[in-house]
């Protein structure tokens, strides 16, 4: 993921809560990339990006409460890039995915930001125009493959439907051949015959591979996979990751892999964003997180994964407390109430941290922590 040029793109956590209007954000957006002279991403370069997200904010309004699910998130992805987005439930990972795809439904609302898909701004498009893009240029795979499959239609009918939706001129015979080809591509044995099976005749891993086949039917430039292997066994999981590998290598697809499993990020991704309370609190190349997790939340998340090597160290270092209520965010850093570093620091309590760019042994990172510069020198896993 391109780190530079994003710096300064978002203010602290508070910026999207108060007066950040569409206008304000758009203005900042126009200024930012150019101003980051040398480091920045010139507007012309944006079309080289598979996906470019700027200052994306999404809220859910429920009577009196406004839940800030995605708060001023910015990032860029090159073609073939594999970005892992990690965080706990409620951190905004799935809301981010749905916001990018224009699938947020009331009471949810995207309240600001821009989304450039292959250089084209898509966040203000009509539902109809978005429908033509979804499934063609950008596609989504969900945790539960059954949510993408209709139990009363054959696999073949559904894959053909996914192909035909964006290729109305294609003849039925050709679509069926393409469907069989897709199933073969995702390693379904005897694809011609199995086109006529129903979803329940497939195993869980095969259903997920079919869901992926449907998502890649039109060779999208961006694929968002939201916990695609969580419901699968480990051996099946590695088959699905191998399939995504081939997708990236053969079609140049950029993949956003949303997961709570840091191991899967290490296995598949080349960059990572750690999400907490609706923001990317640390973004970097993938190895950085495992060698020098600079944000205290990243470090805590990494350390609470059971590690047999640390058996003798006594209880697991669990993260105390709970994620903040996204309708009543702390004034300062959202992680401050749980943070082993900042819990007692007035600055952390009062002031949302700006994104700091730091550089360690494992490369650069953008870290939203007041102590980022100090921690990159000290932190060791």
């Amino acid at each position, binding site marked *: 993921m391109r780190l530079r040029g994003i710096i300064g793109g978002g203010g602290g956590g508070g910026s999207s809560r108060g007066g950040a209007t569409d206008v304000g954000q758009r203005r900042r957006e126009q200024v930012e990339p150019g101003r980051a002279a040398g480091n920045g991403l010139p507007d012309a370069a944006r079309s080289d990006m598979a996906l470019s997200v700027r200052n994306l904010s999404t809220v859910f309004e429920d009577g009196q409460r406004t839940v800030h699910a995605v708060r001023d998130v910015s990032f860029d992805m090159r073609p073939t890039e594999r970005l892992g987005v990690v965080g706990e439930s409620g951190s905004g990972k799935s809301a981010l995915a749905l916001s990018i795809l224009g699938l947020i439904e009331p009471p949810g609302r995207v309240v600001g930001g821009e989304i450039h898909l292959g250089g084209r701004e898509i966040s203000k498009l009509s539902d109809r125009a978005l429908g033509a893009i979804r499934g063609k240029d950008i596609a989504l795979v969900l945790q539960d493959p059954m949510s993408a499959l209709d139990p009363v239609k054959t696999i073949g009918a559904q894959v053909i439907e996914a192909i035909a939706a964006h290729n109305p001129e294609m003849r039925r015979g050709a679509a069926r051949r393409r469907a069989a080809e897709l199933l073969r591509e995702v390693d379904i044995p005897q694809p011609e015959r199995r086109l006529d099976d129903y979803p329940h005749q497939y195993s*869980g891993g095969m259903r997920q591979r079919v869901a992926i086949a449907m998502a890649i039917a039109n060779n999208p430039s961006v694929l968002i996979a939201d916990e695609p292997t969580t419901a699968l066994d480990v051996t099946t999981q590695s088959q699905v990751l191998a399939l995504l590998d081939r997708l990236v290598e053969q079609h140049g697809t950029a993949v956003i892999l949303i997961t709570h499993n840091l191991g899967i*990020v*290490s296995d598949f991704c080349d960059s990572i964003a750690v999400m907490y309370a609706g923001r990317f609190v640390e973004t970097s190349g*993938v*190895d950085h997180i495992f060698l020098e997790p600079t944000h205290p939340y990243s470090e805590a998340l990494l350390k609470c*994964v059971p590690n047999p090597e640390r058996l003798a160290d006594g*209880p697991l270092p669990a993260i105390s407390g709970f994620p903040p209520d996204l309708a009543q965010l702390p004034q300062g850093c959202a992680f401050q109430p749980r943070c082993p570093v900042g819990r007692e620091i007035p600055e952390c309590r009062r002031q949302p941290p700006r994104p700091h760019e730091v550089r360690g042994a494992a490369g650069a990172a953008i870290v939203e922590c007041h102590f980022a510069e100090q921690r990159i020198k000290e932190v060791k896993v």
Partner: protein
Amino acid sequence: MSTPGASPNPAASALAGGEAGAAGAPVLEADRLSKAFEIRGDERLGRKVDVTVLDDISLAVRKGESFGLVGESGCGKSTLARCLLRLLTPSGGRVLFEGQDLAELDRDELRAMRRRMQFVFQDPFASLDPRMTAGALVEEPLLVHQIGDGEQRRAAVMEMLADVGLTAEQAERRPHAFSGGQRQRIGIARAFVLRPDVVILDEPISALDVSVQAQVLNLLRRLQTQLGLTYVFISHDLAVAEYFCDRVAVLYLGQVMELADRELLFRKPLHPYSVSLLSAVPVPQAGGRSRRAQRAQPIGEISSVVDRPKGCPFEPRCPVGRGREICKGERPPLVEHAARHWAACHFPGEMAIARANGSPPAGE
């Protein structure tokens, strides 16, 4: 079982030998346990088919240990756990609790025995009655087993809730007011309030966030020490099993593929299935992409229990034995290949494991 000449309970006999004193006595034993379900109505299978879900399983859980049952979905680990508690009636073989065959107990005796063997379920959302308060939920098992008077029960409930980190004030709340981790604490309190000897934990943390998983694992560890409990810990997550369990049995298609102490199983697995399973676990360390590129992909899909291979159940997918005559034709017995290390494989140890094992990645 295809173990002619082997002792009827190899795992138990392995425990009996050696390391006297260090090892606890067997408290819960499966002796050639089988379970078949009758399936009907599927046109592909004919009218009625017996599907064998557990196939001749023998193992022993020792007092005070955490015994892990790992394997992929459909391997029979949950069915085995339910047979061990006699929540399901086995089709063959015996379950012994402290040497007593559970099938020989009458209703009252079984009921009394059940009090000493409790179950914690995976889904803390589905397993709690939404209309009951946390306090009532924890008190319910005491009422069912008619333990104590109102006063004593209330005291026991409060003590138990405090043990799992919930307050007296929270005792008045209903499940929806709690987070996933807190609900699992209530589930644990319900199982532990009866002061059981053995607790079966069926994927107790799978539904929880990683940060909360750590809290619940810590809690389970503390209660085990505090109350001298024996755990049977069911998990599909091998990293968690490695962290939590003293000994582990790897199940595949209803059979024990390998059974060993934690270090032996995870450092020197003998069965190609264990090796495949362990290498497939993504490790949260730098260099995962290159690690994954190096490891062998398991072949194909898990075989169906309906259409179970004649020889070794793993043969059709096995990088070592696929197509080999003996593997196709002859089911390998579960044999002690090294001290305290059992495997059911014709070619044990032939497939080496490549793991990160906590060592720093290359290049660091």
